[in-house]
Protein backbone atom coordinates (compact mmCIF):
# COMPACT_ATOMS: atom_id res chain seq x y z
CA UNK A 1 0.00 0.00 0.00
CA UNK A 2 1.87 3.06 -1.18
CA UNK A 3 0.67 6.29 -2.69
CA UNK A 4 2.44 7.95 -5.60
CA UNK A 5 4.44 10.48 -3.66
CA UNK A 6 5.27 8.21 -0.78
CA UNK A 7 8.91 7.85 0.14
CA UNK A 8 10.52 4.74 1.52
CA UNK A 9 10.68 6.15 5.03
CA UNK A 10 7.16 7.35 5.67
CA UNK A 11 4.55 4.59 5.81
CA UNK A 12 1.39 5.40 3.89
CA UNK A 13 -1.88 3.99 2.60
CA UNK A 14 -4.28 4.58 -0.25
CA UNK A 15 -6.66 7.24 1.07
CA UNK A 16 -9.17 6.76 -1.76
CA UNK A 17 -9.44 3.07 -0.96
CA UNK A 18 -9.85 3.89 2.72
CA UNK A 19 -12.58 6.43 1.94
CA UNK A 20 -14.55 3.78 0.10
CA UNK A 21 -14.59 1.73 3.33
CA UNK A 22 -16.69 4.45 4.99
CA UNK A 23 -20.21 4.38 3.52
CA UNK A 24 -21.19 7.78 4.93
CA UNK A 25 -18.40 9.52 3.02
CA UNK A 26 -20.23 8.92 -0.24
CA UNK A 27 -23.43 10.58 1.01
CA UNK A 28 -24.45 14.20 0.73
CA UNK A 29 -25.40 16.93 3.19
CA UNK A 30 -27.65 19.75 1.89
CA UNK A 31 -27.17 18.21 -1.58
CA UNK A 32 -23.40 18.69 -1.36
CA UNK A 33 -20.85 15.87 -0.98
CA UNK A 34 -20.31 15.37 2.74
CA UNK A 35 -17.05 16.87 3.98
CA UNK A 36 -16.60 15.46 7.45
CA UNK A 37 -14.14 17.39 9.59
CA UNK A 38 -15.51 16.55 13.04
CA UNK A 39 -13.80 13.27 13.87
CA UNK A 40 -12.49 14.66 17.16
CA UNK A 41 -16.12 14.75 18.33
CA UNK A 42 -16.93 11.30 16.99
CA UNK A 43 -15.38 9.46 14.07
CA UNK A 44 -17.23 7.75 11.20
CA UNK A 45 -17.35 3.97 11.01
CA UNK A 46 -15.84 1.76 8.31
CA UNK A 47 -17.84 -1.03 6.69
CA UNK A 48 -15.72 -3.54 8.65
CA UNK A 49 -17.09 -2.18 11.96
CA UNK A 50 -20.66 -1.93 10.70
CA UNK A 51 -20.44 -5.54 9.43
CA UNK A 52 -18.96 -6.79 12.69
CA UNK A 53 -21.84 -5.21 14.59
CA UNK A 54 -24.50 -6.54 12.19
CA UNK A 55 -23.11 -10.04 12.10
CA UNK A 56 -22.80 -10.15 15.89
CA UNK A 57 -26.52 -9.37 16.09
CA UNK A 58 -27.52 -11.56 13.15
CA UNK A 59 -25.77 -14.78 13.96
CA UNK A 60 -23.86 -14.79 17.23
CA UNK A 61 -25.85 -12.78 19.74
CA UNK A 62 -26.48 -13.94 23.30
CA UNK A 63 -25.60 -12.69 26.74
CA UNK A 64 -22.01 -13.24 27.83
CA UNK A 65 -20.48 -15.18 30.72
CA UNK A 66 -23.58 -17.21 31.54
CA UNK A 67 -25.16 -19.12 28.69
CA UNK A 68 -24.34 -22.81 28.54
CA UNK A 69 -24.89 -22.98 24.83
CA UNK A 70 -22.90 -22.42 21.68
CA UNK A 71 -23.82 -18.88 20.63
CA UNK A 72 -23.34 -17.58 24.16
CA UNK A 73 -19.90 -19.15 24.18
CA UNK A 74 -19.15 -17.50 20.83
CA UNK A 75 -20.44 -14.11 21.99
CA UNK A 76 -18.35 -14.42 25.16
CA UNK A 77 -15.25 -15.37 23.18
CA UNK A 78 -15.73 -12.42 20.80
CA UNK A 79 -16.39 -9.99 23.64
CA UNK A 80 -13.43 -11.18 25.70
CA UNK A 81 -11.35 -11.37 22.52
CA UNK A 82 -11.70 -7.61 22.16
CA UNK A 83 -10.05 -7.22 25.54
CA UNK A 84 -6.98 -8.91 24.12
CA UNK A 85 -7.14 -6.70 20.99
CA UNK A 86 -7.16 -3.63 23.23
CA UNK A 87 -4.40 -5.00 25.46
CA UNK A 88 -2.18 -5.38 22.43
CA UNK A 89 -3.17 -1.99 21.01
CA UNK A 90 -2.00 -0.08 24.09
CA UNK A 91 0.53 -2.74 25.15
CA UNK A 92 -0.91 -3.41 28.58
CA UNK A 93 0.68 -6.31 30.44
CA UNK A 94 -2.54 -8.25 31.10
CA UNK A 95 -6.10 -8.40 29.77
CA UNK A 96 -7.31 -8.15 33.38
CA UNK A 97 -6.14 -4.54 33.27
CA UNK A 98 -8.62 -3.65 30.52
CA UNK A 99 -12.00 -2.57 31.94
CA UNK A 100 -14.95 -1.91 29.63
CA UNK A 101 -16.96 1.22 30.40
CA UNK A 102 -19.46 3.28 28.43
CA UNK A 103 -16.90 5.93 27.44
CA UNK A 104 -13.86 7.84 28.71
CA UNK A 105 -16.11 10.00 30.89
CA UNK A 106 -17.34 6.92 32.75
CA UNK A 107 -13.76 5.64 33.02
CA UNK A 108 -12.67 8.86 34.75
CA UNK A 109 -15.72 8.82 36.99
CA UNK A 110 -14.91 5.22 37.91
CA UNK A 111 -11.43 6.25 39.02
CA UNK A 112 -12.73 9.31 40.88
CA UNK A 113 -15.41 7.25 42.60
CA UNK A 114 -13.39 4.15 43.43
CA UNK A 115 -9.73 5.23 43.67
CA UNK A 116 -10.63 8.76 44.81
CA UNK A 117 -12.97 7.78 47.61
CA UNK A 118 -10.75 4.96 48.83
CA UNK A 119 -7.34 6.59 48.76
CA UNK A 120 -7.72 10.40 48.78
CA UNK A 121 -8.26 12.40 51.94
CA UNK A 122 -8.88 15.98 52.90
CA UNK A 123 -5.96 18.16 51.85
CA UNK A 124 -4.67 15.70 49.24
CA UNK A 125 -4.13 17.36 45.88
CA UNK A 126 -5.37 16.38 42.44
CA UNK A 127 -3.56 18.14 39.58
CA UNK A 128 -5.24 18.84 36.24
CA UNK A 129 -4.36 21.29 33.45
CA UNK A 130 -6.04 24.34 31.98
CA UNK A 131 -6.75 22.53 28.73
CA UNK A 132 -8.86 19.73 30.18
CA UNK A 133 -12.19 18.58 28.78
CA UNK A 134 -15.07 18.92 31.26
CA UNK A 135 -14.91 15.12 31.65
CA UNK A 136 -11.58 15.54 33.40
CA UNK A 137 -12.65 18.51 35.53
CA UNK A 138 -16.14 17.88 36.87
CA UNK A 139 -15.62 14.41 38.44
CA UNK A 140 -12.74 15.87 40.46
CA UNK A 141 -14.84 18.84 41.55
CA UNK A 142 -17.49 16.43 42.81
CA UNK A 143 -14.78 14.55 44.72
CA UNK A 144 -13.35 17.83 46.03
CA UNK A 145 -16.72 18.91 47.39
CA UNK A 146 -17.29 15.52 48.99
CA UNK A 147 -13.85 14.72 50.41
CA UNK A 148 -12.16 18.08 50.75
CA UNK A 149 -9.35 17.24 48.35
CA UNK A 150 -7.71 20.22 46.65
CA UNK A 151 -7.91 20.68 42.88
CA UNK A 152 -4.80 22.33 41.41
CA UNK A 153 -4.71 23.59 37.82
CA UNK A 154 -1.48 23.71 35.81
CA UNK A 155 -1.61 26.60 33.31
CA UNK A 156 -0.93 26.69 29.56
CA UNK A 157 0.80 29.45 27.57
CA UNK A 158 -0.59 31.47 24.65
CA UNK A 159 0.37 28.73 22.20
CA UNK A 160 -1.65 26.22 24.20
CA UNK A 161 1.34 24.36 25.66
CA UNK A 162 1.57 23.26 29.25
CA UNK A 163 4.02 25.47 31.16
CA UNK A 164 6.33 22.84 32.60
CA UNK A 165 7.93 25.06 35.24
CA UNK A 166 4.50 25.90 36.67
CA UNK A 167 3.48 22.27 36.56
CA UNK A 168 6.58 21.27 38.51
CA UNK A 169 5.96 24.00 41.03
CA UNK A 170 2.44 22.72 41.69
CA UNK A 171 3.68 19.20 42.42
CA UNK A 172 4.52 18.46 46.02
CA UNK A 173 4.19 15.99 48.86
CA UNK A 174 0.40 16.46 48.88
CA UNK A 175 0.00 15.60 45.19
CA UNK A 176 -1.75 12.24 45.06
CA UNK A 177 -3.04 12.19 41.50
CA UNK A 178 -2.08 13.93 38.26
CA UNK A 179 -4.87 13.55 35.71
CA UNK A 180 -4.23 15.14 32.31
CA UNK A 181 -5.11 14.96 28.64
CA UNK A 182 -2.60 13.20 26.46
CA UNK A 183 -3.75 15.50 23.66
CA UNK A 184 -5.99 18.59 23.72
CA UNK A 185 -9.38 18.11 22.06
CA UNK A 186 -9.55 21.83 21.28
CA UNK A 187 -6.04 22.76 20.17
CA UNK A 188 -4.43 19.45 19.27
CA UNK A 189 -1.52 20.08 21.62
CA UNK A 190 0.26 16.83 22.44
CA UNK A 191 1.44 16.98 26.03
CA UNK A 192 4.92 15.83 27.07
CA UNK A 193 3.41 12.96 29.02
CA UNK A 194 6.63 10.98 29.54
CA UNK A 195 8.08 13.93 31.42
CA UNK A 196 4.84 14.62 33.30
CA UNK A 197 4.62 11.02 34.46
CA UNK A 198 8.24 11.03 35.58
CA UNK A 199 7.76 14.22 37.62
CA UNK A 200 4.50 13.04 39.12
CA UNK A 201 5.91 9.67 40.12
CA UNK A 202 8.91 11.42 41.65
CA UNK A 203 6.58 12.99 44.24
CA UNK A 204 4.69 9.73 44.70
CA UNK A 205 1.57 10.71 42.74
CA UNK A 206 -0.41 8.40 40.48
CA UNK A 207 -1.06 9.47 36.88
CA UNK A 208 -4.20 9.17 34.76
CA UNK A 209 -3.96 9.98 31.05
CA UNK A 210 -7.10 11.03 29.19
CA UNK A 211 -6.40 9.44 25.83
CA UNK A 212 -9.59 10.07 23.82
CA UNK A 213 -7.81 12.18 21.22
CA UNK A 214 -4.34 10.65 21.28
CA UNK A 215 -5.34 7.01 20.97
CA UNK A 216 -6.51 7.59 17.39
CA UNK A 217 -3.31 9.29 16.20
CA UNK A 218 -0.35 8.31 18.36
CA UNK A 219 0.93 4.81 19.19
CA UNK A 220 0.36 4.31 22.92
CA UNK A 221 2.40 1.96 25.07
CA UNK A 222 1.10 2.16 28.62
CA UNK A 223 3.99 0.10 29.99
CA UNK A 224 6.65 2.26 28.36
CA UNK A 225 4.81 5.41 29.47
CA UNK A 226 4.41 4.02 32.95
CA UNK A 227 1.03 5.69 33.49
CA UNK A 228 -1.23 4.25 36.19
CA UNK A 229 -4.50 4.77 34.33
CA UNK A 230 -5.30 5.38 30.67
CA UNK A 231 -8.83 6.07 29.44
CA UNK A 232 -10.44 6.41 26.00
CA UNK A 233 -13.74 6.11 24.13
CA UNK A 234 -14.52 3.68 21.33
CA UNK A 235 -16.53 6.07 19.18
CA UNK A 236 -13.61 8.39 18.47
CA UNK A 237 -11.54 5.37 17.42
CA UNK A 238 -13.90 4.53 14.52
CA UNK A 239 -15.85 2.14 16.75
CA UNK A 240 -19.40 2.25 18.12
CA UNK A 241 -20.56 4.68 20.78
CA UNK A 242 -21.47 3.27 24.19
CA UNK A 243 -18.15 1.51 24.71
CA UNK A 244 -15.07 2.92 26.40
CA UNK A 245 -11.98 1.66 28.12
CA UNK A 246 -10.25 2.07 31.43
CA UNK A 247 -6.74 0.69 31.62
CA UNK A 248 -5.32 0.48 35.13
CA UNK A 249 -2.28 -1.24 36.55
CA UNK A 250 -3.41 -4.53 38.08
CA UNK A 251 -2.18 -3.91 41.61
CA UNK A 252 -4.06 -0.59 41.67
CA UNK A 253 -7.28 -2.01 40.28
CA UNK A 254 -7.00 -4.88 42.73
CA UNK A 255 -6.81 -2.48 45.65
CA UNK A 256 -9.79 -0.43 44.50
CA UNK A 257 -13.38 -1.13 45.60
CA UNK A 258 -16.11 -1.78 42.99
CA UNK A 259 -17.67 1.17 41.19
CA UNK A 260 -21.16 -0.30 40.75
CA UNK A 261 -22.74 -3.34 42.26
CA UNK A 262 -24.85 -5.95 40.46
CA UNK A 263 -24.67 -9.06 38.38
CA UNK A 264 -21.45 -10.20 36.73
CA UNK A 265 -19.22 -8.35 39.22
CA UNK A 266 -19.70 -10.77 42.13
CA UNK A 267 -18.09 -13.98 43.24
CA UNK A 268 -20.85 -14.95 45.66
CA UNK A 269 -23.92 -13.25 47.13
CA UNK A 270 -25.83 -13.89 50.34
CA UNK A 271 -28.06 -11.43 52.19
CA UNK A 272 -25.35 -11.14 54.81
CA UNK A 273 -22.41 -10.54 52.51
CA UNK A 274 -21.22 -10.45 48.92
CA UNK A 275 -17.75 -10.95 47.53
CA UNK A 276 -16.36 -9.52 44.34
CA UNK A 277 -15.36 -11.14 41.10
CA UNK A 278 -11.75 -10.99 39.98
CA UNK A 279 -10.48 -8.37 37.56
CA UNK A 280 -11.61 -7.16 35.15
CA UNK A 281 -15.19 -8.18 35.93
CA UNK A 282 -15.19 -6.57 39.38
CA UNK A 283 -15.70 -3.26 37.58
CA UNK A 284 -18.23 -4.46 35.02
CA UNK A 285 -21.59 -4.78 36.76
CA UNK A 286 -24.58 -5.82 34.69
CA UNK A 287 -24.84 -6.96 31.09
CA UNK A 288 -22.11 -5.06 29.25
CA UNK A 289 -22.20 -3.39 25.84
CA UNK A 290 -21.45 -6.72 24.15
CA UNK A 291 -21.84 -5.84 20.51
CA UNK A 292 -20.31 -2.38 20.95
CA UNK A 293 -17.21 -4.04 22.38
CA UNK A 294 -17.05 -6.44 19.43
CA UNK A 295 -17.41 -3.42 17.10
CA UNK A 296 -14.56 -1.69 18.88
CA UNK A 297 -12.41 -4.76 18.35
CA UNK A 298 -13.10 -4.55 14.60
CA UNK A 299 -12.27 -0.83 14.64
CA UNK A 300 -8.92 -1.42 16.31
CA UNK A 301 -8.16 -4.18 13.81
CA UNK A 302 -8.94 -1.69 11.03
CA UNK A 303 -6.69 1.01 12.48
CA UNK A 304 -3.93 -1.51 13.19
CA UNK A 305 -4.07 -2.80 9.61
CA UNK A 306 -3.48 0.70 8.25
CA UNK A 307 -0.90 1.35 10.94
CA UNK A 308 -0.98 4.21 13.42
CA UNK A 309 2.33 5.49 12.09
CA UNK A 310 0.93 5.78 8.59
CA UNK A 311 -2.27 7.35 9.92
CA UNK A 312 -0.29 9.84 11.99
CA UNK A 313 1.91 10.76 9.03
CA UNK A 314 -1.08 11.24 6.72
CA UNK A 315 -2.91 13.39 9.25
CA UNK A 316 0.19 15.46 10.01
CA UNK A 317 0.66 16.22 6.33
CA UNK A 318 -3.00 17.24 6.05
CA UNK A 319 -2.88 19.37 9.21
CA UNK A 320 0.11 21.16 7.77
CA UNK A 321 -1.72 21.75 4.49
CA UNK A 322 -4.82 23.01 6.32
CA UNK A 323 -2.80 25.30 8.57
CA UNK A 324 -1.08 26.89 5.58
CA UNK A 325 -4.28 27.20 3.60
CA UNK A 326 -6.27 28.77 6.43
CA UNK A 327 -3.47 31.04 7.62
CA UNK A 328 -3.75 33.04 4.42
CA UNK A 329 -7.34 33.99 5.33
CA UNK A 330 -7.80 37.61 6.40
CA UNK A 331 -8.99 37.87 10.00
CA UNK A 332 -8.47 34.19 10.78
CA UNK A 333 -6.70 33.32 14.00
CA UNK A 334 -5.59 29.81 14.87
CA UNK A 335 -6.15 28.90 18.51
CA UNK A 336 -3.47 26.45 19.58
CA UNK A 337 -0.11 26.90 17.91
CA UNK A 338 2.06 24.47 19.84
CA UNK A 339 4.84 22.97 17.69
CA UNK A 340 3.84 19.52 18.91
CA UNK A 341 0.20 19.20 17.85
CA UNK A 342 -1.92 16.71 15.95
CA UNK A 343 -5.03 16.54 13.84
CA UNK A 344 -7.06 19.43 15.26
CA UNK A 345 -7.34 22.94 13.88
CA UNK A 346 -9.29 25.42 15.99
CA UNK A 347 -9.77 28.95 14.76
CA UNK A 348 -11.79 32.14 14.98
CA UNK A 349 -12.64 34.76 12.36
CA UNK A 350 -12.62 38.34 13.58
CA UNK A 351 -15.74 39.21 11.57
CA UNK A 352 -18.03 36.25 12.36
CA UNK A 353 -18.99 34.18 15.40
CA UNK A 354 -18.12 30.45 15.31
CA UNK A 355 -21.81 29.43 15.35
CA UNK A 356 -22.56 31.58 12.34
CA UNK A 357 -19.53 30.14 10.57
CA UNK A 358 -20.63 26.56 11.31
CA UNK A 359 -24.17 27.21 10.09
CA UNK A 360 -22.96 28.77 6.85
CA UNK A 361 -20.43 26.09 5.99
CA UNK A 362 -22.91 23.34 6.93
CA UNK A 363 -24.94 24.49 3.93
CA UNK A 364 -21.84 23.81 1.81
CA UNK A 365 -21.76 20.24 3.11
CA UNK A 366 -18.91 20.85 5.54
CA UNK A 367 -19.31 19.43 9.06
CA UNK A 368 -17.18 21.06 11.76
CA UNK A 369 -17.70 21.67 15.44
CA UNK A 370 -18.32 25.17 16.76
CA UNK A 371 -18.60 26.07 20.42
CA UNK A 372 -16.65 25.62 23.61
CA UNK A 373 -15.82 21.94 22.95
CA UNK A 374 -16.62 21.01 26.57
CA UNK A 375 -13.59 23.05 27.64
CA UNK A 376 -15.04 26.32 28.93
CA UNK A 377 -12.10 27.11 31.25
CA UNK A 378 -9.75 26.81 28.27
CA UNK A 379 -11.95 29.20 26.25
CA UNK A 380 -11.59 31.71 29.11
CA UNK A 381 -7.83 31.17 29.18
CA UNK A 382 -7.45 31.71 25.43
CA UNK A 383 -9.87 34.64 25.69
CA UNK A 384 -12.36 33.42 23.08
CA UNK A 385 -16.07 32.70 23.65
CA UNK A 386 -15.92 29.75 21.26
CA UNK A 387 -13.94 28.43 18.31
CA UNK A 388 -14.56 26.61 15.06
CA UNK A 389 -12.80 23.27 15.15
CA UNK A 390 -11.91 21.29 12.05
CA UNK A 391 -10.54 17.91 13.03
CA UNK A 392 -8.89 15.42 10.75
CA UNK A 393 -9.45 11.68 10.62
CA UNK A 394 -7.64 8.93 8.77
CA UNK A 395 -10.04 9.29 5.81
CA UNK A 396 -9.75 13.03 5.17
CA UNK A 397 -7.93 14.38 2.12
CA UNK A 398 -6.85 17.67 0.60
CA UNK A 399 -10.21 18.09 -1.15
CA UNK A 400 -11.87 18.22 2.28
CA UNK A 401 -9.59 21.07 3.31
CA UNK A 402 -10.17 22.85 0.00
CA UNK A 403 -13.93 22.55 0.56
CA UNK A 404 -13.57 24.06 4.02
CA UNK A 405 -11.57 26.97 2.63
CA UNK A 406 -14.10 27.53 -0.16
CA UNK A 407 -16.95 27.50 2.37
CA UNK A 408 -15.15 30.04 4.52
CA UNK A 409 -15.18 32.32 1.49
CA UNK A 410 -19.00 32.22 1.73
CA UNK A 411 -18.72 33.43 5.31
CA UNK A 412 -16.48 36.24 4.16
CA UNK A 413 -18.95 37.14 1.42
CA UNK A 414 -21.80 37.48 3.93
CA UNK A 415 -19.96 38.93 6.89
CA UNK A 416 -16.70 40.37 5.58
Amino acid sequence: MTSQDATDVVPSYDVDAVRSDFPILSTTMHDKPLVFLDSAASAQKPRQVIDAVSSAYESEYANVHRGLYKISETATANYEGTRETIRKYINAERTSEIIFTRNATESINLVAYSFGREFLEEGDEVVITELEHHANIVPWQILRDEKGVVLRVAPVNDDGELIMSDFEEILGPNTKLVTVSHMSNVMGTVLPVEELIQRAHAVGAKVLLHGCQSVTHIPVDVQALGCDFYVFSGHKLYGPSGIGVLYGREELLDSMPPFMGGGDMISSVTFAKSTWANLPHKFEAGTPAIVQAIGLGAAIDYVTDLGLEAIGAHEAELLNYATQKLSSFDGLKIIGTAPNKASVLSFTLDFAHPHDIATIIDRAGVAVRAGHHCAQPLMDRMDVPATVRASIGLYNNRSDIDALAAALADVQELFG
Partner: protein
Amino acid sequence: MSDDLRELYQEVILEHGKNPRNFYASEDATNEARGNNPLCGDQLVIYLKLDDDGRVANASFLGKGCAISMASASMMTEIVKGRTRNEAESIFEAFHGICTGEEAGHKLSDDLEKLQVLSGVSAFPTRVKCATLPWHTMVAALHGKDEISTE
Protein backbone atom coordinates in the same frame (compact mmCIF):
# COMPACT_ATOMS: atom_id res chain seq x y z
CA MET B 1 -24.74 30.11 -1.41
CA SER B 2 -28.20 28.81 -0.49
CA ASP B 3 -31.26 31.05 -0.36
CA ASP B 4 -32.11 30.10 3.20
CA LEU B 5 -28.68 31.37 4.29
CA ARG B 6 -29.33 34.71 2.62
CA GLU B 7 -32.76 34.72 4.24
CA LEU B 8 -31.20 34.04 7.65
CA TYR B 9 -28.38 36.52 7.41
CA GLN B 10 -30.23 39.54 6.07
CA GLU B 11 -28.51 42.90 6.01
CA VAL B 12 -30.53 44.19 8.97
CA ILE B 13 -29.43 41.27 11.13
CA LEU B 14 -25.78 41.63 10.18
CA GLU B 15 -25.96 45.34 10.92
CA HIS B 16 -27.60 44.83 14.35
CA GLY B 17 -25.09 42.05 15.04
CA LYS B 18 -22.16 44.33 14.30
CA ASN B 19 -23.56 47.44 15.97
CA PRO B 20 -25.97 46.27 18.65
CA ARG B 21 -28.29 48.94 20.07
CA ASN B 22 -28.58 49.54 23.83
CA PHE B 23 -25.41 47.54 24.42
CA TYR B 24 -24.44 48.56 27.94
CA ALA B 25 -24.97 47.67 31.60
CA SER B 26 -27.69 49.91 33.07
CA GLU B 27 -26.79 51.38 36.42
CA ASP B 28 -30.41 52.08 37.33
CA ALA B 29 -31.99 48.81 36.19
CA THR B 30 -34.75 47.54 38.48
CA ASN B 31 -34.69 44.03 37.01
CA GLU B 32 -31.86 42.09 35.49
CA ALA B 33 -31.35 38.49 34.46
CA ARG B 34 -28.55 36.40 33.05
CA GLY B 35 -29.25 34.08 30.14
CA ASN B 36 -27.11 31.09 29.41
CA ASN B 37 -27.03 28.53 26.62
CA PRO B 38 -24.78 25.82 28.06
CA LEU B 39 -24.64 23.91 24.78
CA CYS B 40 -22.93 26.68 22.86
CA GLY B 41 -21.65 28.91 25.65
CA ASP B 42 -23.66 32.01 24.73
CA GLN B 43 -24.19 34.29 27.72
CA LEU B 44 -25.93 37.60 28.07
CA VAL B 45 -27.41 39.89 30.69
CA ILE B 46 -30.63 41.81 30.16
CA TYR B 47 -31.21 45.03 32.13
CA LEU B 48 -34.73 46.43 32.50
CA LYS B 49 -35.92 49.56 34.24
CA LEU B 50 -39.59 49.25 35.15
CA ASP B 51 -41.46 52.42 36.11
CA ASP B 52 -44.17 52.65 38.77
CA ASP B 53 -46.88 51.59 36.31
CA GLY B 54 -44.91 48.46 35.42
CA ARG B 55 -43.88 49.78 32.02
CA VAL B 56 -40.44 49.09 30.61
CA ALA B 57 -38.86 52.54 30.80
CA ASN B 58 -35.48 51.33 29.61
CA ALA B 59 -33.93 48.10 28.32
CA SER B 60 -30.32 47.25 27.58
CA PHE B 61 -28.05 44.23 27.37
CA LEU B 62 -24.50 42.97 27.41
CA GLY B 63 -23.18 39.65 26.23
CA LYS B 64 -21.27 37.54 23.79
CA GLY B 65 -22.87 35.49 21.10
CA CYS B 66 -23.49 34.88 17.43
CA ALA B 67 -24.93 37.41 15.00
CA ILE B 68 -28.42 35.96 15.48
CA SER B 69 -28.48 36.26 19.27
CA MET B 70 -26.87 39.70 19.23
CA ALA B 71 -29.28 41.02 16.60
CA SER B 72 -32.27 39.50 18.37
CA ALA B 73 -31.25 41.06 21.70
CA SER B 74 -30.56 44.40 20.06
CA MET B 75 -33.94 44.55 18.30
CA MET B 76 -35.71 43.30 21.41
CA THR B 77 -34.37 46.13 23.60
CA GLU B 78 -35.67 48.63 21.05
CA ILE B 79 -39.08 47.04 20.82
CA VAL B 80 -39.93 46.43 24.47
CA LYS B 81 -39.15 49.99 25.52
CA GLY B 82 -42.38 51.71 26.53
CA ARG B 83 -44.38 48.45 26.67
CA THR B 84 -46.20 47.09 29.67
CA ARG B 85 -45.15 43.78 31.17
CA ASN B 86 -48.06 41.97 29.47
CA GLU B 87 -47.36 43.58 26.13
CA ALA B 88 -43.71 42.57 26.31
CA GLU B 89 -44.69 38.99 27.07
CA SER B 90 -47.19 38.73 24.27
CA ILE B 91 -44.67 40.15 21.81
CA PHE B 92 -42.36 37.34 22.87
CA GLU B 93 -45.07 34.76 22.27
CA ALA B 94 -45.63 36.08 18.78
CA PHE B 95 -41.90 36.25 18.13
CA HIS B 96 -41.40 32.69 19.37
CA GLY B 97 -44.04 31.54 16.88
CA ILE B 98 -42.17 33.25 14.06
CA CYS B 99 -38.87 31.63 15.04
CA THR B 100 -40.27 28.12 15.20
CA GLY B 101 -42.34 28.56 12.08
CA GLU B 102 -45.66 28.26 13.96
CA GLU B 103 -46.70 31.81 13.27
CA ALA B 104 -50.33 31.06 12.47
CA GLY B 105 -52.37 32.99 15.02
CA HIS B 106 -49.42 35.18 15.81
CA LYS B 107 -49.79 37.88 13.20
CA LEU B 108 -47.41 40.65 14.09
CA SER B 109 -48.84 44.14 14.32
CA ASP B 110 -47.30 46.71 11.99
CA ASP B 111 -44.97 48.19 14.57
CA LEU B 112 -43.51 44.73 15.23
CA GLU B 113 -43.12 43.87 11.59
CA LYS B 114 -39.36 44.48 11.77
CA LEU B 115 -38.96 41.33 13.88
CA GLN B 116 -39.98 39.41 10.79
CA VAL B 117 -36.37 39.58 9.55
CA LEU B 118 -35.50 36.93 12.14
CA SER B 119 -38.04 34.46 10.71
CA GLY B 120 -35.30 32.89 8.57
CA VAL B 121 -34.12 31.10 11.69
CA SER B 122 -37.10 28.72 11.43
CA ALA B 123 -35.23 26.87 8.66
CA PHE B 124 -32.34 26.24 11.10
CA PRO B 125 -33.74 24.31 14.09
CA THR B 126 -30.38 24.31 15.90
CA ARG B 127 -30.28 28.10 15.81
CA VAL B 128 -33.79 28.91 17.14
CA LYS B 129 -32.44 29.15 20.68
CA CYS B 130 -29.93 31.77 19.56
CA ALA B 131 -32.81 34.03 18.59
CA THR B 132 -35.02 33.28 21.59
CA LEU B 133 -32.43 33.29 24.41
CA PRO B 134 -32.50 37.11 24.85
CA TRP B 135 -36.29 37.01 24.99
CA HIS B 136 -36.45 34.17 27.52
CA THR B 137 -33.98 36.15 29.60
CA MET B 138 -36.05 39.32 29.31
CA VAL B 139 -39.18 37.48 30.48
CA ALA B 140 -37.18 36.00 33.39
CA ALA B 141 -36.09 39.53 34.35
CA LEU B 142 -39.72 40.71 34.19
CA HIS B 143 -40.64 37.93 36.61
CA GLY B 144 -37.82 38.82 38.98
CA LYS B 145 -35.77 35.71 38.22
CA ASP B 146 -32.08 36.40 37.91
CA GLU B 147 -30.98 33.48 35.79
CA ILE B 148 -32.24 31.31 32.96
CA SER B 149 -30.80 28.50 30.92
CA THR B 150 -31.97 27.10 27.60
CA GLU B 151 -31.35 23.54 28.76
